[in-house]
């Protein structure tokens, strides 16, 4: 989230699209309903089905799954055509005035692809996706927004055909409802009106997932709603610590703190730093990532301690390198496993046999492993895959371990919510039986592997033997780990370049501003620096002060970065430092004291128009909010493409049905079809209030299973009548990849739509169930047996939100 959960109360308009907070983040509704009650805020829900969130909406618009960019593109057009954008914000704080290379060609010019598309490689050469630079290397701008090559005019052209008629034809929503939504949202282009957006997997689980989110980010930049209280673009993330686990780099492409994982071509630390440290000639850009070398060197010091020296490139060679042109994402991983290339596998607190799209492929892939280690509170469909449906244990060689771990109340540590608040929690009781905290299991494994290498030697043992690892013997003190990711001085610093003060070896660094690139600081995760300082554990704080009255609670736990509660908050003030909306001042420049009041600002520098002032988007080399997304795999502007599996054509770009660079896989298990009469309906998956993810943590909780005991399928009355299905009937749903049974819920909450003159029936299935539990099989199995492993080319997230299916009443 750019903002945070409590901040939803500060909004005038709350758009819920791609999310369903009443069901998946119910306590968020406390703040949404408070905005409605106390500010008269409007809640708009755009969703393929009428959700529990929709039951509280002022306006509900039903759209076809996967048609979001059509809806949002139409809104961009509406804002531009009616000049409802926030002009001062757009001109000063975004790249909309920037001029783009005249060789850049839009999808409007090339019938659905951008310049640089290589149909053989299904990849873009992005050479033309760039700004024009002046003689000083600074991007050229036209503050009047009239130059035909400026981003604003290109954007206008890009969405020129996203008319109400077109949006209605693609989404299936009536024009008057679309227009009503547009009017309410666009109204917040005024400086004193703010809209926010809540999304979740309804936007990410598409082959155009990133572009869904970018489309709304562009709208928020046009309307001047980024950085504002009650504004922003807010990902309501799925798990209690998925923010933290992402921050900590449990992903192939990022080390902790979003430092890129080095590639084979990044042959040494110097090459790495040069490649990943952006440069700018923009005089007022702070360009925060210029500090990258400090963060990677401090990370290497945290990893390999005293062994990491300037002379040995701080052990940079110990970090495993990715091949330059290869990805190692979730679906690549299971593809490699299916092909027999992966021999050993850890499934730690995860249940991929149910959570992964095309779960049949995953289940078959597991059988090709030599060994599998699962760490969980319960036995799952993954750990017991070898006795699952269609499996013959006698033919499965895999050696499987199931290690019992501690639950959240049985250990001590921090987790980070979607608002980036890292909150400390304490141990209440011991784990049951022989279960151990995960930290102790990790510690034990590391020590035993290290001992083997010490004793026997082996392949490249140095990174293991020299690893800086001292967290306790049997009992792991998690506070020691927190201190490491905060960072500490590894040597005396008699006069620190930042504040000229002396720091002693072993002292905690006060914040990442104090990190150095010469090896005198170690820091496991720079964005968590200032969370555990010499003043103590900031994540454990319980101060209730709220000086701004906006609900920032600066003394309640701790928030990354440096306790900044609203990101990009320098964009909430005008170039003189006065809040755009004085009734909701996130920060405000005090000209007498020459300092900022309010939230921790995005950099302490003065306001933009003053001497030494900087542009608001400090993480961008340009210093401004980016509309022209040159870094994306699938184009600088979000473009409407049909889902990979869709029964319909793309009326905007008839020659390019789906995202031309969507990633697809090629084993016999990876089947994708479109416009196939065997699968005439649109399937979608979702979650419900009472369960969580694959249901392992809720199916084993009897009170929750009581509420939603069995997999169900929601469908419209017309389709039900046609198929002779009544509520409560058992039905069979098939997709090109699998089939499951479910109990029918026939409802008015999903209506058939008319798309391009054809009837479109949508059926929705939750993915919380699995064969292993309830033990009698009464719950059913995972909806992910149906979903395709077609993935977004930027994030590699699966398109689980739209695929083709058929449905029939079960015969028994």
């Amino acid at each position, binding site marked *: 989230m750019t903002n945070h959960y409590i901040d939803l109360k500060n909004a005038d308009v709350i758009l819920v699209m791609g999310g369903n907070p009443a069901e998946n983040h119910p306590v968020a509704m406390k703040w949404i309903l408070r905005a409605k009650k106390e500010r008269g805020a409007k809640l708009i829900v755009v969703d393929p089905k*009428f959700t529990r969130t929709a*039951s509280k909406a002022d306006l509900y618009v039903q759209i076809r799954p996967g048609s979001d960019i059509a809806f949002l593109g139409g809104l961009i057009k509406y804002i531009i055509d009616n000049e409802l954008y926030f002009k001062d914000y757009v001109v000063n704080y975004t790249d909309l005035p920037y001029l783009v290379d005249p060789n850049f060609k839009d999808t409007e010019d090339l019938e659905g692809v951008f310049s640089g598309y290589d149909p053989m490689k299904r990849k873009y050469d992005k050479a033309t996706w760039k700004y024009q630079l002046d003689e000083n290397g600074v991007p050229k701008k036209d503050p009047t927004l009239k130059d035909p090559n400026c981003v604003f005019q290109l954007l206008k052209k890009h969405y020129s055909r996203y008319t109400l008629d077109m949006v209605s034809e693609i989404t299936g929503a009536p024009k008057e409802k679309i227009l009503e939504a547009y009017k309410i949202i666009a109204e917040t282009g005024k400086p004193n009106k703010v809209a926010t957006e809540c999304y979740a997997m309804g936007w990410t689980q598409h082959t155009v997932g990133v572009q869904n989110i970018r489309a709304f980010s562009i709208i928020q930049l046009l309307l001047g709603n980024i950085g504002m209280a009650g504004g922003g673009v807010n990902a309501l993330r799925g798990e209690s610590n998925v923010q933290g686990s992402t921050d900590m780099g449990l992903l192939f492409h990022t080390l902790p703190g979003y430092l890129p994982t080095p590639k084979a071509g990044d042959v040494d630390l110097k090459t790495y730093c040069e490649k990943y440290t952006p440069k700018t000639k923009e005089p007022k850009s702070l360009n925060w990532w210029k500090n990258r070398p400090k963060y990677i060197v401090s990370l290497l010091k945290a990893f390999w301690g005293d062994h990491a020296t300037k002379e040995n490139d701080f052990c940079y060679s110990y970090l495993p390198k990715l091949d330059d042109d290869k990805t190692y994402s979730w679906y690549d991983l299971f593809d490699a496993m299916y092909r027999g290339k992966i021999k050993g596998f850890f499934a730690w607190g995860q249940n991929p046999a149910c959570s992964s799209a095309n779960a049949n492929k995953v289940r078959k892939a597991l059988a090709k492993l030599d060994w599998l280690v699962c760490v969980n509170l319960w036995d799952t469909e993954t750990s017991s895959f070898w006795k699952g449906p269609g499996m013959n244990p006698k033919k499965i060689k895999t050696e499987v371990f199931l290690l019992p771990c501690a639950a959240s109340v049985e250990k001590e540590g921090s987790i980070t919510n979607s608002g980036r608040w890292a909150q400390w929690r304490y141990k209440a009781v011991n784990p049951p039986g022989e279960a151990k905290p995960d930290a102790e299991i990790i510690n034990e494994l590391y020590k035993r592997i290290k001992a083997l290498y010490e004793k026997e030697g082996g392949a490249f043992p140095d990174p293991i033997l020299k690893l800086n690892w001292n967290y306790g013997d049997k009992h792991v003190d998690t506070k020691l780990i927190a201190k490491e990711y905060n960072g500490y001085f590894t040597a005396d610093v008699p006069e620190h370049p930042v504040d000229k003060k002396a720091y002693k070896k072993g002292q905690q660094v006060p914040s990442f501003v104090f990190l150095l690139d010469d090896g005198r600081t170690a820091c496991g995760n720079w964005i968590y620096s200032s969370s555990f300082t010499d003043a103590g554990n900031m994540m454990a704080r319980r101060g209730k002060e709220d000086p701004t009255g906006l609900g920032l609670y600066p003394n309640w736990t701790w928030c990354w970065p440096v306790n900044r509660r609203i990101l990009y908050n320098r964009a909430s003030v005008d170039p003189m430092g006065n809040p755009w909306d004085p009734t909701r001042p996130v920060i405000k420049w005090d000209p007498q004291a020459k300092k900022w009041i309010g939230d921790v600002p995005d950099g302490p520098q003065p306001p933009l128009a003053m001497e030494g002032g900087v542009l608001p988007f400090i993480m961008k080399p340009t210093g401004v909010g980016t509309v022209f997304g040159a870094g994306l795999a699938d184009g600088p502007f979000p473009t409407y493409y049909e889902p990979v599996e869709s029964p319909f054509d793309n009326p905007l770009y008839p020659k390019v049905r789906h995202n031309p660079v969507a990633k697809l896989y090629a084993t016999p298990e990876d089947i994708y079809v479109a416009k196939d009469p065997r699968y005439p309906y649109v399937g979608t998956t979702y979650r*419900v209030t009472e369960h969580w993810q694959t249901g392992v943590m809720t199916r084993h909780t009897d009170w*929750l*299973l*009581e*509420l939603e005991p069995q997999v169900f399928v929601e469908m419209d009355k017309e389709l039900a009548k046609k198929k002779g299905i009544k509520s409560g009937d058992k039905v069979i749903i098939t997709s090109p990849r699998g089939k499951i049974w479910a*109990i029918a819920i*026939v409802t008015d909450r999903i209506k058939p739509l008319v798309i391009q003159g054809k009837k479109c029936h949508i059926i929705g299935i939750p993915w919380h169930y699995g064969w292993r539990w309830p033990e009698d099989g009464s719950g059913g199995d995972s909806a992910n047996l149906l979903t395709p492993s077609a993935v977004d080319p930027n994030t590699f997230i699966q398109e689980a939100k739209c695929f083709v299916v058929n449905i029939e009443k079960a015969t028994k």
Partner: protein
Amino acid sequence: MARKGLLITPDLCIGCRACQVACKSWNDLPAEKTKNNGTHENPPDLTGYTYNKIRFIEKVVNGEVRWIFVSQRCRHCGEPACVQVCPVGAMQKDLDTGIVFYDKNVCIGCQACRSACPFDVPRYDKQGKIGKCHMCIDRVKAGLVPACAKTCPTGAIRFGDRDELIEKAKAEGFKILHGEKELGGLGVVFALSQPPSYYELVENPQKPEKVVALGEMLKILVAKGLPIENSIIKEFLS
């Protein structure tokens, strides 16, 4: 202590059913083995182990679908018929708070309370003993909020002094307060923006006429050691 109450505002309810779970958690009530009956609503009815459940009501009004969530539970009548018919004093009204609570150890399972209830609320556990919402009287007596109201994320269930809750609801603009006057005033009051029928609430609840007489007769039966048959209670009241 002033009369306590719950103010339930279905328009604020998101149907999350935290109240159902919190009730079971605080009151140590086991889960029931359920199945999906073609609706999200579960368990299908109140039971001796489910004191509070949310009804999921779907309607189409002027072509627009509506999804309404309404709490089903004991209304804590001002003059509780269940207390009046209970021949053994198991069902009681707390004079301090107005909460209608019970003592399972005393209950003989005659089920007269259910027959007498204008809202058909009391249910029985596997031992045949009464189980229903007691507004977490143990918590209330200790100065705590009932589990359902405490856990409700949106303020759809609020707890407090009944009079104050009613004032609050009126100040918020609610014209229809179901339970304010019904049956002489109920402890559980619904603040409504539509008529009670929209929420499928009992429009005009009535207490069976012969409740007092029935209660006295049952007491005699108990005193004489005679068994009580439910069919006869029903016939008497009909």
